[in-house]
Structure formats: C-alpha cells, structure tokens
C-alpha cells in the first residue's frame, strides 16, 4: 500500500521525483509541488485508501449478516437511495453547472452530499425496519433491498425524465464515483467513521464466525443473532452511505474484495475483515492511479474503472465458485 501510495503521488499530468515528494512531505517542498501533493494527490490517495477499506469491509460484513454472497451496497439499495437523493438535490436546488469548456460540475456539493446521504439512509432504514418489525430473514432482506433499489431507481428516472439538459448531465456526472471530489475535511470525516466502524467489526469478528456456522449454532454460542445482524447492517450501511455521499458510486469493490479474500484465506472473519480492508485499499488506490493516468491528461472517474474491472472478475468468480 505504501509503494502504491508513493507511486500514485509521483505519477500524473505533472510527474514528481521521489526527492520532490520527500521534500514536500517533510515541509521543504516548493510551492508548486506542495500544491500538487497536499491539495490534489494526497487527499485523493487518502480518500482511495479510506473508501477502499470502507467499501470492502462493509461488503464483507453485509455478506455475513445477510448470509448471501451477493450482498453489497448495490444489492441492498444503498447506492440507489444515494443516487435518488443526489438527483433530488440537483433538480430541486438547481445545483448543476457547466464550465465554459462544457465540463459539468456540481455547485454547492454539500447540498448534494447531504441529500445523497439521506437517500442512502432511507434505503437502509426501510430494510432495517422491515427486518426488525416483520422479522425478515436475511434472504428476504436481500430481496427487500432489490425492491427498494428498484423503487429509488424508478424515482430517479422520473426526475431525469423531467430534468433539463444541465440537470441531467449533473445527475449522470454525480453517479460516477470520483475520488477527486473530497477535500481534507471530507476525507477526515470519512476516516473517523471508517476507524470506529473497523474497530467495531474487528471486535465482532467472533460473532460473525458464529453466524457463519448457522443461526442456531450461533445462538447456542451465546450470540444474540438478531442484534448482531441489525448492528452489523447499520454500521456497514452508515459507512457506505458516508462514502457514497462524498464520492458517488464506486461499484464492485465491496462485492469482490471479500470474495477474493475468502478464496485465498478461507471463511474466518478474524482474517477476512483486516485483509479485505487492506485489499480494498490497495485495489481502489491502484484503480484510481490507472484512472488518472490511462488517458492522461483526462482523469477518468474511478467508479467507471472499478465497474469495468469488477464485472469480468466477478463473472469469473461466479463461474469458478458456483458452477454445478
């Protein structure tokens, strides 16, 4: 991860030597280098690491608590809830904008972020309420997530249908997961939430192992399975919601990282959680470095790249692991 970070710091539209990076990081760099490192590349790298950890770990926990290998922020509708919230803010607060070059941007990004967060939380809360009040099984929670995702998706499409060109372009732009958006303050918020969530998940690793051995076995080991599921889902969803709100939608990291770790490390959550975190961080960091440099000077949103890479890898895993 350190090597990837250093490489990512050095590469880009303006290449930096190791000496320049060292001087800048130790407070002795020139203004131009400092600007590139401290204001552009470093927040982006830290955001990639934090988002990679957050998405991978919450994917792992969701897959355990919902007892479904296909559980992810996508499948339980969090991403669609956030998309709906962002579209709502863009339409009703008219925060879409375009530069003279035609490049789309979002005015008042915090308005969009807050609404995206509310949308994501709405999706989560509906599922958790259904789970709590109607005592849904983990399998039914996944199906409820798909239904809610579909509902939010339909709501977004209605707004897109009535949006003007600029609003429509802003909505589409927002859905591209982009690590270039957050500033240090947002990266700080994401980091604090990630650290607390990660500590919670690591503390609960034995409970997740017990859940994997079956509902009744887990109960007989003293695990309050309903409470463990609800809190696991709630913390994982909050973590994802914050990330989606600040960065947009970055697909497949939450789905693929835990699967890859399971293939190589087995099904023990003492290892799945920390190694998924590490793997997620490295994967997103490398993906973003590639996205920044592959058709430089144009910077691709990392969400496009993770989806491009993730889909074939996931199909390969499905064929390999689940063939009859």
């Amino acid at each position, binding site marked *: 991860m350190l090597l990837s970070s250093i490489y990512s710091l050095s590469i880009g539209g303006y290449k930096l030597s190791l000496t320049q990076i060292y001087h800048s990081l130790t407070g002795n760099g020139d203004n131009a280098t400092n600007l590139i490192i401290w204001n552009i590349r470093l927040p982006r790298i830290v955001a990639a690491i934090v988002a990679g950890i957050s998405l991978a770990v919450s994917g792992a926990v969701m897959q355990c608590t919902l007892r479904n290998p296909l559980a992810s922020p996508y499948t339980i509708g969090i991403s669609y809830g956030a998309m709906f919230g962002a579209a709502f803010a863009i339409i009703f607060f008219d925060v879409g904008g375009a530069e003279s070059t035609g490049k789309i941007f979002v005015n008042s990004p915090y308005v969009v972020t807050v609404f995206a967060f509310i949308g994501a939380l709405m999706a989560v809360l509906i599922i958790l309420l259904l789970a709590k009040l109607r005592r849904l099984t983990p399998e039914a929670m996944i199906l409820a997530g798909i239904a809610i995702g579909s509902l939010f998706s339909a709501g977004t499409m209605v707004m897109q249908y009535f949006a003007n060109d600029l609003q429509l372009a802003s909505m589409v732009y927002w859905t591209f997961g982009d690590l270039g958006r957050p500033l240090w303050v947002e990266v700080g918020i994401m980091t604090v939430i990630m650290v607390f969530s990660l500590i919670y998940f690591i*503390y609960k690793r*034995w*409970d997740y*192992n*017990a859940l*994997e*051995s*079956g509902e*009744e*076995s887990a*109960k*007989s*080991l*003293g*695990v*309050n399975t309903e409470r463990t599921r609800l809190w696991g889902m709630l913390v994982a969803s909050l973590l994802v919601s914050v990330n989606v709100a600040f960065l947009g939608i970055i697909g497949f990291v939450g789905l693929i990282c835990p699967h890859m770790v*399971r293939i190589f490390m*087995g*099904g*023990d959550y003492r290892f799945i959680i920390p190694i998924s975190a590490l793997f997620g961080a490295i994967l997103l960091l490398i993906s973003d470095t590639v996205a920044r440099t592959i058709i430089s000077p144009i910077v691709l949103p990392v969400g496009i790249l993770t989806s491009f890479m993730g889909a074939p890898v996931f199909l390969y895993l499905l064929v390999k692991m689940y063939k009859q």
Partner: protein
Amino acid sequence: MILSVDGVEFSYKSKKVLENIKFKVDKGDVVSVLGINGAGKSTLLKCINRILKPKKGAILIDDFNLNKLNSLEIAKKIAYIPQSVNGNYISVFDAVLLGRKPYIKWEVSKKDLKITSDILKLMNLEDCALRYTKELSGGELQKVAIARALAQEPRILLLDEPTNNLDLKNQMAIMKIIKNISRSQNISSIVVTHDLNLALRFSDKFIMLKDGMIFSEGNNEVINSKNIQEVYDVNAYVDNYNGIPIVVLV
C-alpha cells in the same frame, strides 16, 4: 440431579407445541427424547437452550434458573448441536476454537488454545485439524460439531438427531462418543433420535413425547410394544440379543 425441567410450555402463535413438560436429568446420563415428527422433540431442546423462550415453566441447571442467566452464561452451561451441521471454509481447529466464543473477550487466551487442542486429541481429530470443515465427511463433521460443543465446557449437551444422514458405522461411532463423553466428562446429554435401537443401546433414560406432552418416561422398560404402538402407531416388539434389547418392527 443436574437439570430440572419444570412445567415447560411453548406454542407457535396459537398452536401449543409443548405442554407441561417435567423431567429431571442426572449427572453423566444420556437421555433419549423419542416421538414422531412434530411431537415437539426439537422444540424441547431449543427451549432448554433458550434458543426459544418457553411461555411457561422453569429450567434449572445446578439449581440456577435459566431465566436469570444471559445468553453467554447459558452458553457456558449448555451446548447445542442442531439437526443440520454444515461445513464451511474454516479449519477444523478454528471451528472447535469457536466453541470458546462465550469465554473470549477480545483475543483467544492460552487456556482457550489448550482446551481446543485437548478436545481435538480426545475426539481423534488431530490429523484433520488444518483441513477446512467443508472438506469433511458427514461423520467427521458431526465429530467436529461435538468437539466444538465440548469446547464450551458445558454441563449439558443437547443433540438434535446427531446420527441423521450417517451410515451405520458412523451412527454407532457418534453414539459411542456421546456415551463415553457423558461418562468421562460428567456431562449430561439429551439426544433427540428416531432410532429406537440406537437409543436403547446407548441411553440411560428415555422420554417419549406425544402431541407435545410426555407420554412416558423412565428406563428402557418404557420402550415396549404398547408404548411404541401408542406413540408411533406401528406394531413392534422388543427382543433381546446378547443382553441388548432390540426393537423389531412387525
């Protein structure tokens, strides 16, 4: 006396599944719970383990009322092996170590590791300690489940059809293990089974359930033609082979 079940009742919505269940179990005894499908056998085990909460009645272990204990404290006294035990991608050692869950705070202790190693040795599972449980046979998987239950250091072992889906040799082996452990570790075992002959061979006490109530309870004399006819609605007689009672269906 280690376990006392006193007037336990349970219902799923309006349907009564268990009614006024009363019995006692002594230290080191193997008790077989018998009856047709739907008689309430599995529900009884789950009520004893508080996986299900009885509507009425009390369950006492060493004179402690289970109602006053939390789930972790119960897990230190009662271990439960469900009907279907599945393997996954976790090593046999770690699967057994999971039995220490009620005792683990943040990290496993040396004591947890030692108990796990000792149980693997006791159960002859040392050779497959590093294999994934997914790769095990049905018999081995059941042994791992028993080993994990033992790692809880329980006073009572509850087993729901432990010989289900096993071949004859493994059925005998598993029941022998249950019997030996109960004797050597002073653990009382309550076994739900459909196999009257295995029950007769390995149990000290028998509880026959019918329509959620105890129909008959006692030593092997309760397994007789009349009771089998009443409980299972089949004709059978009990014969004797080298001193071992056997049920012969007519």
